[in-house]
């Protein structure tokens, strides 16, 4: 963390007669200061525990949930099947042509972030961002292996003795196992999980599976185990974007400096109560911070608003018998009002302003529209592409032939026979390239396998001198539901001027 250098530099600034020259940093590059957050318990720590458990459970367990779709289709509940171009999510199956569902969900994710950010600021960063969750997990490992903040700081500073090496190796092994498992869970989303595990350990999985695990193990180890808060402070674009999305009505973790300053120890404050604010300068808010920020300096990109400093400060305030909430979730406007002497406003009131309501309405509207589209979509589809070269064919008896590539889509998990019927084009008949011209007919039946698109090469023949005209192909599923779809097509003849 930068504050040490900044502090030393501020010092030099104060002593210098020429502040401009002294403002140049004495070092262009800065060594990372390790962060050793202290254990804390409290309301927000418990929320953080819950968020961590839920997100990790979703991540690791989801690929192992089974979902019965019948004998023809995968039984994995959530699967991104790139090989067959399908996305399965419980009862929903998305085909490539239905990608608008994914687009819709991305738009929802966008509005969701606007909504969350303008309401509760960087709540995403504080509780559910993978970087935060995994860093939290790794910091718990640190605490488990090396003890709490002070023990870890001592160990860090200690020389490399045998026991320190042993501890570090043990800790890094745990890191590695978690990292490997993280990569391992990821690939399960793209292939049948039990099969992939078997193939993986017998060395028969695709090279991409091993490569992906290797890369994700490395990144998890590096990002979660080593550089941690540096990702948030230096690498992530999201804090920068969020600063533009927040306004004076967004909730953020705030140190109420007008109440806390000037800070001083309990002892000093007892002597001269009038000279000191509520902050006892115990530094607990800094000690528990997972990114090492000092919230008393105000909001910063380093502050992921996990609110652990609120837990820490509330405890201390209770201990010294001062009102809680010296650090709390508050909006800038509330702070101003409170500073001017108003009563603290409950945090939930910040959620009822028009901007939040509009974001929420837009978010829900898209969600409802997607659900409606999902509920009413058809599982039968026919499309046809007519040959353009040649557009029509004159046969020896003068009749006119057009050729079409017809695609029958069966979006159900069982094979279905579909009947393709011609509408219009008097005297016309059709046959496929697997049939004989002599058996040309006005309705063709074809068995379309489960969850597949079947292409048929169809020749449509019309009597001599048939003029160009529109006709239709109608596909009807030969089952109880009898779903139907039709496609309008143009029959081209020698008179066609188009």
């Amino acid at each position, binding site marked *: 963390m930068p504050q040490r250098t900044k502090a030393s530099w501020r010092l030099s600034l104060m002593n210098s007669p020429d502040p*401009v020259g002294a403002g140049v*940093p004495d070092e*262009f*590059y800065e060594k990372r200061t390790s962060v050793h957050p202290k254990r804390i318990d409290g309301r927000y720590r418990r929320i953080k525990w819950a968020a961590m458990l839920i997100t990790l459970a979703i991540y690791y367990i989801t690929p192992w949930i089974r979902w019965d779709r019948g004998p023809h289709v995968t039984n994995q509940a959530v699967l991104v099947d790139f090989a067959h171009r399908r996305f399965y999510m419980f009862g929903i199956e998305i085909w490539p042509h239905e990608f608008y569902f994914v687009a819709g969900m991305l738009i929802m994710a966008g509005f969701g972030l606007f909504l969350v950010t303008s309401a509760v600021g960087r709540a995403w960063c504080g509780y559910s961002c993978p970087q935060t969750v995994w860093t939290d997990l790794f910091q718990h490992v640190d605490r488990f292996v090396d003890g709490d903040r002070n023990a870890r700081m001592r160990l860090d500073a200690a020389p490399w003795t045998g026991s320190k090496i042993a501890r570090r190796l043990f800790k890094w092994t745990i890191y590695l196992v978690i990292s490997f498992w993280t990569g391992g869970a990821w690939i399960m989303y793209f292939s049948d999980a039990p099969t992939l595990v078997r193939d993986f350990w017998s060395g028969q999985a695709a090279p991409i599976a091993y490569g992906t695990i290797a890369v994700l193990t490395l990144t998890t180890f590096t990002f979660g185990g080593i550089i941690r808060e540096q990702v948030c402070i230096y690498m992530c674009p999201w804090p920068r974007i969020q600063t533009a999305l927040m306004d004076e009505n967004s909730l953020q973790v705030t140190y109420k400096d007008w109440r806390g300053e000037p800070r001083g120890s309990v002892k000093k404050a007892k002597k001269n109560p009038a000279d000191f604010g509520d902050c006892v300068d115990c530094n607990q808010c800094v000690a528990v911070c997972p990114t090492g920020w000092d919230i008393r300096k105000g909001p910063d990109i380093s502050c992921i608003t996990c609110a652990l400093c609120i837990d820490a400060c509330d405890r201390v305030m209770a201990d010294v018998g001062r009102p809680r909430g010296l650090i709390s979730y508050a909006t800038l406007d509330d702070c101003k009002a409170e500073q001017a002497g108003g009563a603290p406003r409950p945090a939930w009131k910040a959620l009822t302003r028009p901007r939040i309501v509009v974001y929420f309405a837009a978010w829900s509207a898209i969600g409802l529209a997607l659900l409606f589209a999902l509920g009413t979509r058809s599982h039968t589809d026919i499309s046809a592409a007519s040959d353009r*070269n040649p557009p029509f*064919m*004159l*046969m020896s008896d*003068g009749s006119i032939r057009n*050729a079409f590539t017809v695609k029958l889509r069966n979006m159900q998990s069982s094979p279905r026979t579909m009947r393709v019927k011609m509408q219009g084009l008097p005297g016309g008949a059709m046959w496929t390239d697997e049939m004989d011209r002599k058996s040309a007919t006005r309705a063709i039946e074809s068995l379309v396998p489960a969850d597949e698109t079947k292409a048929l090469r169809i020749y449509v023949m019309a009597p001599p001198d048939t003029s160009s005209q529109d006709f239709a192909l109608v596909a009807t599923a030969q089952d109880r539901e009898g779903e139907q779809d039709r496609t309008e097509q143009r029959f081209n003849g020698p008179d066609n001027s188009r």
Partner: protein
Amino acid sequence: MANKRIDEATNIETVGHEWDGIEELNNPLPRWWLWSYYASVVFAIGYCIAYPAWPLIEKGTEGVLGWTSRGALAEEMLQEEERKAPILAAISSVPIEQLPQDNAQMRAAIDGGRAAFKVNCVQCHGAGAAGSKGYPNLNDDVWLWGGDLKAIEYSLIHGIRQPGHDETRIGMMPAFGRDGILTGAQISDTADHVLSLSGKGEKNAAGAQLFAENCAICHGAEGKGLRQFGAPNLADAISLYGNSRQQVTNQIHAPSHGVMPAWGERLDPVTIRMLAVYVHSLGGGEDFMENAPEDESVLAAEPDEQP
């Protein structure tokens, strides 16, 4: 430009640039960032050594790994050849008329033929195999020399009127006008009769007489053609050289004859076979049963002759 100043809130110097009131603080960069920069420099040097990188006067540096994009392509092509080999072997292993019994094999042959067609045939027959004047349309059901798989394969191997090739398909129509066999008036009458065969003109008795004497030997009494000589059917809706009166007259006066190379001299047998299957699949292919009874009788006769 360099309007450096100390920011009041943080006591840190700005870098001196300002965009609409937004300034940047001159904070130090984290040191690991610097190391990642050095690491990418090292990677770049390693890459330049391992792979082709620097252009020189004659050619570029080659790289110690010896990788080339042409080499990578050649390797992929080789793998593709290996993948295709058993499929091609299977296609060659059975007589062509039996190919349709195996749908998967047939589909593979059609795909292979489509690819070969794009390379070798589209120059004359067109990308959609629709042909043009003088170049037969392969989508329709009109076949000058036969439209079953075997006949198409034969035409492909031996070509049409290929000079110096003994087994080539050959048939020549006399130049009735240019060589003085018929007079202009007679040709005119014959043309009328030919047009009437397909219902495009009035009947002409003199023309019918001339047709019977001069043309029926190849084109048949009713003008239905004779595949043995590649004599086209004159009674159908399709004319290779056009069906206007002028075009028909020209064709009687001094006929044009199409030529196709003997592909057997240029392509390997399995490619020709796949081309035949592809052309046959275009929608006008005829059943290969035509010659089958003959073949069967030959096969059936053989054991009898063996005592």
